[in-house]
């Protein structure tokens, strides 16, 4: 059984679909990471992704303009992020629960809008794959790595970008400070709320791209609950990766590859019942969380704690 899974075709297959599905995870998880590092847990990513996925899909459906679709997804995602920021930062609501509210709201809203505007799932032409000259001609690696659509490349470029932004810029310094010791940042005149608004809104915009990557790049369709829990996994990946971009990327790849793996196990007729195989990614995530939880040093200690001066 193991041997069959180690066949080159299978490994390449797993890698290919792993890289594709890692795309929405990367945008959503890295965006969420910024919010969490600054101290805000946004559990509403799933809802934001849904609304943005619909928005992008709708624009592309009605105009065919992919760039406009992506831009609208970003704006819509940012607005939803802003809503989440307002609830959790200004109104200091319990973040785990307000996230569920945003999720339900997004789930309902996206479906509602879809129903009143388009109604039935209709495919659109999404981002075409973009062959990178020369590199895409490489044997094996070429098709896997260098003939994807632009959003896939973008997702992987977002990884070093995030690392750089966090560790090499002044705003990165502020974000980390605000999530670890908001009082310290506050005493230096840094607006804790301001930084958090920024990161959560940015995270929303990224969740917007994540949604768009599904509806106008990977699946090229919209349907009720298109994301099916993807956003929640993205949130888990942030913990999994211990708030570090590279590890989050590894987590995203691992998760999406294990999802592919369990489908391969079925495809090859290896006799593991589909539901049991389907548990693999979740069980794996829990196991990984056990290890991630040990990395206390990087943990944003103020995560989920609203900041109040003088207490």
């Amino acid at each position, binding site marked *: 059984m193991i041997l069959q899974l180690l066949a080159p075709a299978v490994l390449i297959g797993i890698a290919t679909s792993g890289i594709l599905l890692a795309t929405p995870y990367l945008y959503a998880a890295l965006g969420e990471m910024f919010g969490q590092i600054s101290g805000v847990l946004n559990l509403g990513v799933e809802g934001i992704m849904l609304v943005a996925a619909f928005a992008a899909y709708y624009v592309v459906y009605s105009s065919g303009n992919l760039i406009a679709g992506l831009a609208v997804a970003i704006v819509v995602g940012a607005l939803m992020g802003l809503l989440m920021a307002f609830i959790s930062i200004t109104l200091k609501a319990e973040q785990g629960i307000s996230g569920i509210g945003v999720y339900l709201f997004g789930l309902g809203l996206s479906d509602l809008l879809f129903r009143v505007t388009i109604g039935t799932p209709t495919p659109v032409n999404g981002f075409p794959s973009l062959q990178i000259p020369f590199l895409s001609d490489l044997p094996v690696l070429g098709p896997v790595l260098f003939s994807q659509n632009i959003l896939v490349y973008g997702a992987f470029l977002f990884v070093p970008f995030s690392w750089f932004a966090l560790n*090499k*810029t*002044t*705003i*990165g*310094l*502020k974000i*980390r*400070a605000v999530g*670890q*010791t908001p*009082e*310290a*940042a*506050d*005493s*230096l*005149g*840094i607006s804790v709320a301001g930084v958090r608004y920024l990161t959560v809104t940015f995270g929303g915009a990224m969740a917007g791209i994540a949604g768009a990557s599904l509806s106008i790049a990977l699946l090229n369709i919209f349907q009720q609950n298109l994301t099916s829990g993807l956003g929640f996994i993205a949130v888990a990946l942030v913990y999994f990766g211990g708030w570090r971009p590279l590890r989050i990327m590894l987590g995203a790849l691992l998760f999406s590859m294990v999802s592919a793996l369990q489908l391969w196990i079925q495809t090859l007729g290896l006799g593991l019942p589909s539901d049991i195989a389907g548990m693999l990614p979740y069980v794996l995530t829990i196991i990984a969380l056990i290890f991630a939880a040990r990395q206390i*040093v*990087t943990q944003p200690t103020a995560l989920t704690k609203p900041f109040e*001066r*003088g207490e």
Partner: protein
Amino acid sequence: MIQSVELKNITKRFPGVLANDHINLRVNAGEIVALLGENGAGKSTLMKILYGMYRPDEGEICINDQAVTISSPNDALRQGIGMIHQHFQLVPGFTVVENVALGLKSSRGPLTDLDVVSRRMLELAKQYGLQVDPSAYVWQLAVGQQQRVEIIKALYRNASLLILDEPTAVLTPNEVDEFFNILRRLRENGHALIFISHKLQEVMAISDRVTVLRGGRVVGEVATRDTTKQELAQMMVGRQVITRWEKQAAQETEPILRVQNLTVLGDKNLPAVKNLSLHVCPGEILGIAGVSGNGQRELAEAIAGLRRATTGSITSEGREIANHSPAHIIHSNIAFIPEERMLMGVVREFSVAQNAILETHDQLPYSRYTFFNFSAVNQTAARLVNDFEVKTPSLETPIKVLSGGNIQKLILARELERAPRFLLAAQPTRGVDIGATEYIHRRLIEQRARGTAILLISEDLEEVIALSDRVAVMYEGEIVGVLPPTTPVEELGLYMAGAKRA
């Protein structure tokens, strides 16, 4: 550059409290003004107003005789006001230079310029004697060094007025001396300083003028050279305060607590207590002196059962308690006054009565078959509140509303109620004003007289000397000397700094 800062008629109300009541205060360049007062007198509130963290209800702030509005720490920094809080405002996961650079405009636009900051920082450090490694992580630094980082942060931002809120509470005598040297150098350079402390000898040593607050009002203003410690205490509390205690000499008998060859790992998984041995006899106070971070906390936690002992033994009345559960240890007649009362000593949201039975709630008469007997609980709580003069509106009041001194009294009452054979008191008076400190000291001395063995861990050398029968100095996880309390402070300081061992 600030020539003078003047607070005029500042009033600040909190729900139910008049924290500042028409306060006037002036400080000039090249001058250190000390602010004195009991706990809750309004010192920190006044300073937070000056630093823009609170808005005053009335009154105004003048800098160089010009009225200014300071509505955020940012404004304060812009005006040249810096504040060093009692609880350091540092990001522990950052390096020193990152902490300094935080929030500054960078010379490289959106990118950090840590090299530039690091260079300028070292210049400043040299000028004022504030040596610290820019690339070290803050969590790795000793408290005294962290404080230097705080000062550097303020100076880097061109602060010419520095507010120092209880800066010495966590320093050793030697560190205090160094710290005062830094303050003097700042004063010579034309900085203005406001200094808050509960320790009168420090006020006498460093300040030029003293302002005393009581109940939110200014009750006295004197030049330091025209006053004495006794007079200041009188102003603050309204009576004389005892700082020296007469007590019977302790008997050397069979010890109650015996620690042998104990090794305990710290948070970073390195040995924090190394092969340490000590014993405490009935009717004796053993004081542990030492700079914080030398293993005192880990020692206390190991005795309390909160931290594993990797080797060695801890016995109480001959029975092994090392690596037993906290519950087991509590039931072996051992009591604790933990270091951080708000964090460890009480459940802030619980009422006074509920906190009074924190360890004994599952015992008769407070509960039977897991069901509470509320009248028994309230009876005991009422008696403790009464006996220990805990000022509280009611037994139902959430304890977080009480003052630190009163919370400390309740903890003391609760622990002594259990008639312990051994009491571990860690920092029992940290941040507590002199009135309450005197009260707590008296209770400890009384308990000693009843034959309880007491292990006193304190960074306040004065306190250790005043209460202990023997003083053990801890340095880097070891006891480097057990000395009589009559040992000169300077010599103790040498032991504490690791420069000398017995």
